[in-house]
């Protein structure tokens, strides 16, 4: 054990880093971090000896030595190109909350704060909340985040508030070699409704994002959360979203995994009685990109509904992973669950590993799942050619159409437009 981890650059650097992390004087947080460090210290970054990491080996990350960076200069035009005009905006630079770049004027019924700031000024507000939706035992990247997170944002929507504009969390990395370990805590009060969009981008090439979102949805609350992952080509990305859904709550997630060299998403939700959960996802990978999506829906009480639809497009030597777990507990009768994963392979060297898993512990349920892996249909390519479209464009049109089905599910028109442009940039077809 020690031999394997003796060269883990992160463990070696931790003692020097620890004093600069926020909340050093808070015993409850110290306990959380110490436990996390202990878990992470046992085996380091997950490797494919673990079932949940069978297709994605991160053990090489241990040798990289990315380190926390401060907020630095950010090119305004570049940053603004990712901002949504019609949204409040929280900007995190290298993982640190940048209040001067954020746009939060006019917020009503919702409290938005930097996490480090709250841990200094009003730590009681977070005690007992951090770590409620996920614990270090989940896996070692969660443990890593627990021990290393330096900042992030807390968003608290008061009960019965319905936000009239979405909130964007714009996560940018500008320093080469930066480790951006962020923790966001999102609380949606009873009967409240909100839309949140996370955008991950980098203006430098090589860095490591390790982000964890905890989302707590109150009774009959609604949250639409969209993740737009556009990390730089060589970036390492881990983003986990862990949700606790109270009775009658509704969680809609869109996961667009388009960037990064090695990227892993966890989307996990635990559903109380009659809660609804929809997970949509699109992963598009080319070159030697590796994009892994892990979802887990736990129906804990009766009458829950879950819908899951993921699509993958893999080109060149890219590798995609979809693992979808649905767990229906013994007393979650009348659960209604559907899962679907469709994948398009554009090259002979591309690969996708897809693994739907249903674990059902009672008889009174309606559950289905389906998976396909295929290529573009040649008869469709020929049909477009026979109308004057050249072969390369025909293939792009068909690939774009396959992928765009997921962007089309996004209701927010501005966000949909941005996603459309990202897809068109990857599959240039004629202008629409």
């Amino acid at each position, binding site marked *: 054990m020690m031999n394997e981890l003796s060269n883990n650059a992160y463990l070696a650097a931790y003692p020097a880093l620890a004093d600069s992390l926020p909340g050093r004087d808070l015993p409850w947080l110290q306990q959380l971090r110490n436990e996390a460090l202990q878990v992470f210290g046992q085996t380091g970054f997950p490797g494919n000896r673990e079932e949940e990491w069978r297709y994605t080996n991160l053990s090489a990350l241990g040798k990289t030595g990315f380190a926390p960076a401060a907020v630095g200069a950010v090119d305004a035009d570049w940053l603004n190109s990712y901002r949504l005009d019609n949204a409040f905006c929280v900007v995190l630079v290298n993982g640190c909350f940048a209040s001067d770049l954020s746009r939060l004027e006019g917020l009503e019924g919702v409290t938005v704060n930097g996490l480090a700031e709250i841990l200094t000024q009003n730590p009681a507000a977070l005690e007992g909340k951090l770590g409620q939706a996920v614990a270090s035992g989940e896996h070692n990247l969660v443990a890593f985040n627990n021990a290393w997170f330096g900042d992030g944002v807390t968003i608290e929507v008061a009960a019965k508030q319905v936000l009239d504009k979405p909130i964007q969390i714009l996560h940018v990395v500008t320093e080469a070699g930066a480790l951006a370990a962020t923790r966001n805590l999102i609380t949606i009060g009873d009967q409240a409704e909100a839309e949140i969009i996370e955008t991950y981008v980098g203006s430098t090439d090589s860095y490591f994002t390790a982000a964890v979102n905890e989302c707590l949805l109150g009774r009959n609350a609604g949250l639409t959360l969209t993740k737009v992952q556009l990390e730089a080509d060589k970036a390492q990305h881990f983003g986990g979203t862990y949700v606790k859904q109270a009775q009658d709550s509704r969680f809609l997630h869109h996961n667009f995994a388009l960037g990064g060299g090695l990227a892993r998403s966890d989307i996990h939700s635990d559903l109380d009685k009659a809660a609804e959960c929809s997970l949509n996802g699109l992963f598009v990978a080319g070159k030697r990109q590796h994009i892994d999506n892990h979802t887990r829906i736990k129906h804990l009480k009766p009458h829950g509904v879950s819908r899951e639809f993921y699509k993958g497009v893999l080109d060149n030597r890219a590798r995609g992973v979809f693992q979808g777990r649905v767990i229906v507990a013994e007393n979650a009768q009348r659960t209604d669950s559907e899962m679907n994963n469709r994948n398009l392979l554009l090259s002979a060297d591309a690969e996708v590993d897809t693994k739907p898993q249903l674990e059902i512990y009672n008889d009174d349920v309606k559950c289905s799942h389906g998976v396909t892996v295929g290529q573009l*249909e040649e008869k469709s390519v*020929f*049909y477009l050619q*026979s*109308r*004057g479209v050249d072969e390369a464009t025909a293939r792009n049109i068909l690939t774009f*159409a396959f992928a*765009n089905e997921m962007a089309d599910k996004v209701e927010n028109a501005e966000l949909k437009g941005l996603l459309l442009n990202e897809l068109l940039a990857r599959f240039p077809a*004629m202008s629409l």
Partner: protein
Amino acid sequence: MLSIKNLHVSINDKPILKGLTLDINPGEVHAIMGPNGAGKSTLSHVLSGKAGYTVTEGSVTYNGKDLLELAPEIRAREGVFLAFQYPVEIPGVSNIYLLKAALNAMRKHHGLPEVDAMDFLTIVKSKVKLLQMDEKFLYRAVNEGFSGGEKKRNEILQAAVLEPKLCILDETDSGLDIDALRIVAEGVNSLRSAERSFLMITHYQRLLDYIKPDVVHVLADGKIVKSGGPDLALELEEKGYSWLEGRAA
């Protein structure tokens, strides 16, 4: 405009067309009839450039060019249009997008600027009316969930927008009820002109009641075995094909 000489075509080394010769002049409507397996669809596929067919002998000249040398999309841009026997469903691509992409590809090929968005809509809507289609069809995915008749009408709509020089209709009557057949035929008839030629491939005579051909050919065992005027179609309807099989034109 189209001159097919002694065309031999094989699929996986199996000869399908065995010396087909056919000349079509501008403005003419030719019908090719024949029993199943005679090679009718192979002919339409070879002319439009579908992969999987090997031309072992003969030539196809289209407006002075060697048609067989051209990529499928170039043939289309040069004015060859195939109305498919089984139009392909393309989820996620709207009819109007395909029409615009196709029209602009064609215009670019001929050195013309992209069509103005308003003009385009005007053109397309007039053609939609011509084919008695609902404008909603324009915004639906290409052929997805269309009935048989709607798919065939959609093929003719595309031809109406793209204004080809040579229009190949592959079993356009199959799967159509009598009302749909009439509408499709009216659409085709409205496209007839002194410059535009048609090659209609059909198993049954009934399409020819609505679209009057100038010349009728009988294709059997990979060759044209008899050619004649419109009356030949009626004779075939009466006698079937067996009396012609094995006979040279």
